[in-house]
């Protein structure tokens, strides 16, 4: 598995929604890379554009009203934005697949679990119905569900079990990349640990790269080797786990860590980041974080910071480091 070749490279990607209330700038010129077998966390509050980025990669941005307005998404060197619908369809499920957030609604209620897994297998691997079902059974076992339950329906499974099925569907054709959009948010903590554990195992076993989208910094710490912090559609800080966790640069990232209860630091009160997420329709001028930034300077209000590399592999978008 040569990890040198870049699996996924996002260059200057912008995705906007054109609605009647105005243009929603969900994703603004983000770029990052993902190597084969690597796991990167994409962290941010709700509305930061995480899910839109994921859907952008998968080519599932609902159009109208959404549209990719700029940038490139290179998957193994090929720009997905230029790919035809047919090509994209062949990629989805085979080369990259997606796990959605709410297991309760991500499975088709009227089809058996087995059928839903077999469907993706038969789409990408020329197997007969019988063999596809056999493989589906194996994958089901792999995610810890007895094969006999293949003929049951989603409503007969608990939340955790359903998420396992969704994972089974995503990994059925051992894709090179999984995009997991907050896979454990809807689950309670005990099940969350099991599901994450399962995903990490399968990732090692199949050598799959993963883009994990979450707002839970703890989950990122356990599973990812790289992390990118998103705010108002931009990546404000990106780097290896140590870079971002140990010598955090960007004020927003510091704010995020500040609002986390931690056993080691004995702070009596959590320090929330005050203010609200900016309205994506009219983003603040200059650095989007400036209205909420504790050490905001005059220039922050007017000039938009540029992505600067503070140390190898550690990027930040803040005027203080330019």
């Amino acid at each position, binding site marked *: 598995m040569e990890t040198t070749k870049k699996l996924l490279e996002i260059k200057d990607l912008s995705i906007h929604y054109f609605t009647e209330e105005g243009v929603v700038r969900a994703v603004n010129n983000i770029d990052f890379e993902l190597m084969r077998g690597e796991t990167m966390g994409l962290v941010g509050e709700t509305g930061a554009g995480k899910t839109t980025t994921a859907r952008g990669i*998968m080519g*599932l941005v609902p159009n*109208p009203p959404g549209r990719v307005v700029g940038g490139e998404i290179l998957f193994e060197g090929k720009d997905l934005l230029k790919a035809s619908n047919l090509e*994209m*369809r*062949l*990629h*989805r*499920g*085979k080369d990259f*697949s*997606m796990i*959605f*957030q*709410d297991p309760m*609604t*991500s*499975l*088709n*209620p*009227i*089809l058996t679990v087995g059928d839903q897994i077999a*469907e*993706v297998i038969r*789409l*990408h691997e020329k197997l007969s119905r019988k063999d596809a079902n056999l493989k589906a059974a194996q994958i089901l076992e792999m995610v*810890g*569900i*007895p094969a006999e*339950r293949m003929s049951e*329906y989603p*409503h*007969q499974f*608990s939340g955790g*079990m359903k998420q*396992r099925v*969704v994972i089974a*569907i*995503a990994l059925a054709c051992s894709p090179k990349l999984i995009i997991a959009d907050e896979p454990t948010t809807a689950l309670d903590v005990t099940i969350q640990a*099991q599901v994450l*554990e*399962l995903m990490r*195992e399968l990732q090692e076993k199949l050598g799959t790269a993963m883009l994990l989208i979450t707002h839970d910094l703890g989950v990122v710490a356990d599973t990812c080797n790289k992390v990118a912090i998103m705010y108002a559609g931009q990546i404000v800080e990106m780097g290896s786990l140590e870079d971002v966790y140990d010598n955090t640069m960007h004020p927003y990232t510091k704010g995020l860590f500040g609002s986390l209860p931690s056993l080691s630091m004995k702070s009596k009160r959590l320090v929330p980041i005050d203010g609200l997420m900016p309205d994506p329709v009219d983003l603040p001028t200059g650095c989007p974080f400036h209205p909420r930034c504790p050490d905001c300077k005059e220039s922050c209000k007017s000039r938009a910071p540029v992505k600067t590399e503070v140390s190898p592999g550690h990027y930040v978008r803040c005027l203080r480091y330019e």
Partner: protein
Amino acid sequence: MLRYIAKRIFLMIPVLLGISFVIFLLMYFTPGDPAQMILGDMADKEDVEALREEMGLNDGFFERYFRYMGDLLRGDLGTSYTTKLPVWDEISVRLPVTAKVAFFVILFAVIIGVPIGILSAVRQYTIIDSITRVLALLGITMPSFWFALLLVLLFSVRLGWLPASGLYGPSYYILPIISISAASIAIITRTARSSMLEVIRQDYIDTARAKGQKERVVLFKHALLNALIPILTVVGIQFAGSLGGAVVNEQVFAIPGIGKLMVDAIKARNYPLVTGSVLVLSLLQSMVNLFIDLLYAFVDPRIRSQYSRDKKKKKALNGAVTANAGMAANKRK
């Protein structure tokens, strides 16, 4: 499943009893004397009075009601005042005609309504969507007999392509079906559109697309099957409605249906025929509703599991699984 059907049929009895009671009440209080209608207005008082006595019209309300119920339980719907035929004979001739027409109307409405509904849902905010929505509205707003008359004048008289009335062959069915189904097509289209729109926004549709499934299959397999239930409900209501409701069209196209029979029976104060036809019609309508509910179970497993007896077995299995899944997970740690 059978237990559920038995329960539903058992539930129909009080409803039918209720209907017969209300009809009897309505008939009891409406003025107009059946005996007079039978003997005609030339008959003199004594004859009318004698007939009233003979028909038991002078007895008390409850006495007549219980006598009627007694006969009903023995399966005898009484005899029609005007033609003196057993009510069942009159109904059994007219009911299949209405049922056949109603069936074709619904078939026609579904074949046209559902695809258009889906199309306008998929192509939302385009010109097709607006055209179908407005045409659907026109279907609902047009008085059916006006539309029926227009059709007859256009296709029978001016173009001579189709016969104007009667039901003596396949070509006779075309105009009545178009005129009766206009409203049903409109309603089915609108429901199909709104329920499709509802389903298309669900997450599992994106899951299907994320699998790399063709858009056509995503829509017509994943989406449509889930959108079926609201559509089925409306189809059921429309079918039940057009059974009793097509009176006006039956008159324009001279179709010997049960709707017209019922209306004339009331006008002639032919109590047994009125009650009989309304009861038979309500029974048929309840059967249609039951059939539609069973279709729900067939289409949606969530509903099916409510009926099936083996619910207990399922719970046990569910418990076991969570235990060993947990074991498998920590065994590997």
